[in-house]
């Protein structure tokens, strides 16, 4: 469904952030992207929806090469790619509902969005999604009044109301506590499963990635150095990706104790 062909990004400073990344993601697959800070994980997912312009190579979504789209077609293509951010990236002074509805901006005209007159079907869908992530009673709260976990749920609802085919997820749990992190990861994976979405999840927490995803990609200095299942992540592989460290504790099977699912 998504193919990356020799995707390369060199920043104007000369730093090579991505180097010839080849990757194919089938429909409905959720994969985790791991690697040290500065390995190019964020650049990789931003090069797909062109928040970062790749220098060369191609990113092909459903047969359409995203890297060569005109501005107008790029906007249309972005509707099919929902994005979830590290620090939630909600518009803080807008209400929860407005934040969710902003996911539909690619579908409605300027005046409709300016006057907040979204179609009834969109509003129904927004309430359904808020209910699904457990925040239906928060619709008129301002986004900055929410806790971290709640904000990320709004971020998830905003990405899903786009009706995307692909989710680009950038460090969804980096600013959350361990328990909330698991709940958010579980929610993302469940929703991908329900809707048959593919997802690329950048994540620092290797143990957390292993708990939830069937495929892991390792990135190091802009190059793909690992592609396999979570059980193939041996200490040698992790040393290759991150450098020398005692990996036994990370690799240990993490108990998935009962947590309330909100």
């Amino acid at each position: 469904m998504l193919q990356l062909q020799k995707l390369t990004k060199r920043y104007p400073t000369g730093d090579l952030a991505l180097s010839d990344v080849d990757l194919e993601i089938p429909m409905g697959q959720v994969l985790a992207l791991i690697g040290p800070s500065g390995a190019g994980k964020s650049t990789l997912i931003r090069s797909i929806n062109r928040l970062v312009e790749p220098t060369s190579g191609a990113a092909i979504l459903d047969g359409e090469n995203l890297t060569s789209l005109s501005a107008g077609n790029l906007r249309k293509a972005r509707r099919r790619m929902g994005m979830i951010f590290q620090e939630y990236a909600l518009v803080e002074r807008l209400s929860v509902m407005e934040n969710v509805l902003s996911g539909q901006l690619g579908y409605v005209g300027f005046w409709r969005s300016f006057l907040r007159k979204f179609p009834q079907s969109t509003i129904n869908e927004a309430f359904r999604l808020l209910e699904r992530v457990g925040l239906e009673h928060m619709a008129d709260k301002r986004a900055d009044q929410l806790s971290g976990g709640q904000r990320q749920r709004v971020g998830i609802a905003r990405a899903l109301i786009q009706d995307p085919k692909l989710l680009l997820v950038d460090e969804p749990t980096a600013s959350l506590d361990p328990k909330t992190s698991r709940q958010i990861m579980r929610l993302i994976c469940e929703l991908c499963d329900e809707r048959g979405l593919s997802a690329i999840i950048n994540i620092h927490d290797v143990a957390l990635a292993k708990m939830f995803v069937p495929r892991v990609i390792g990135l190091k200095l802009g190059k793909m150095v690992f592609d396999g299942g979570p059980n193939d992540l041996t200490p040698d592989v992790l040393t290759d990706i991150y450098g020398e460290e005692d990996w036994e504790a990370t690799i240990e099977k993490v108990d998935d104790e009962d947590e309330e699912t909100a």
Partner: protein
Amino acid sequence: MSEASLALGRTWKRPPIISNPILRWTLIIGALVYLIAAVMTIDVNWSRVYEGLERGKKFILAFSNPNFSDRWTDIHEGMLESIVMALASTVAGIIISIPIGLGAARNIAPLPVYLICRGIIALSRALHEIIVAILLVAVFGFGPLAGFLTLSFATIGFLSKLLAEDIEDTDKSQAEAIKATGSSWLQWINFGIQPQIMPRLIGLSIYRLDINFRESAILGLVGAGGIGATLNTAFDRYEFDTAAAIIIIIIAIVMVLENTSTFIRGKLQ
């Protein structure tokens, strides 16, 4: 822990900003010498000051007995003109400032637009209100039109610059998230940027209204209409009691505006 005990008794001082002591002391002594020399060049004519004291005293005393009634029609008209001028120029200035402010923010405008908008701002800020007013009075004649145009022009420089700086300080990730949804440029501004700058835009607008009112009192001195003209006439006729009345009204209005703006800005966060 022998190292820790060795560390006992070590003194510490904050390193000076200029580390070279010769340069440091040269600068300090130089600044002092310059200050003393500068004060000594001021030529004070003490006998003139003594004469003026008498007039100053009369003026100050006039405040204990301000005369609102004799020239009330003039004061009333001038005040109204000043208020209308301040309000109209603020509104016109805001409307023009918003697009220029957007264009002058480096993070959202392409380079050519940025340079043009920054150029307009620089021009508006380079020219003081009084100079613009003198020029516009020469073009449009005496009266409030020249004052209105002057204040609108000055508002653009002030508001666009501060607005652009606020836009440049906005959180990039919030705007990026809106862009990633496939929004158009206008939607992106409306959802991603506008909520972040709205409180400051409102605060600055009220502050500018306050400034424009005070400026409108000055512009009358060069013939650009408003209460300044009435005030100038009162001084010319040595009617200090009327002048005192006008100044008291100006102070009252500025204080009301100041309190309103503080109140409204407190309400927005």
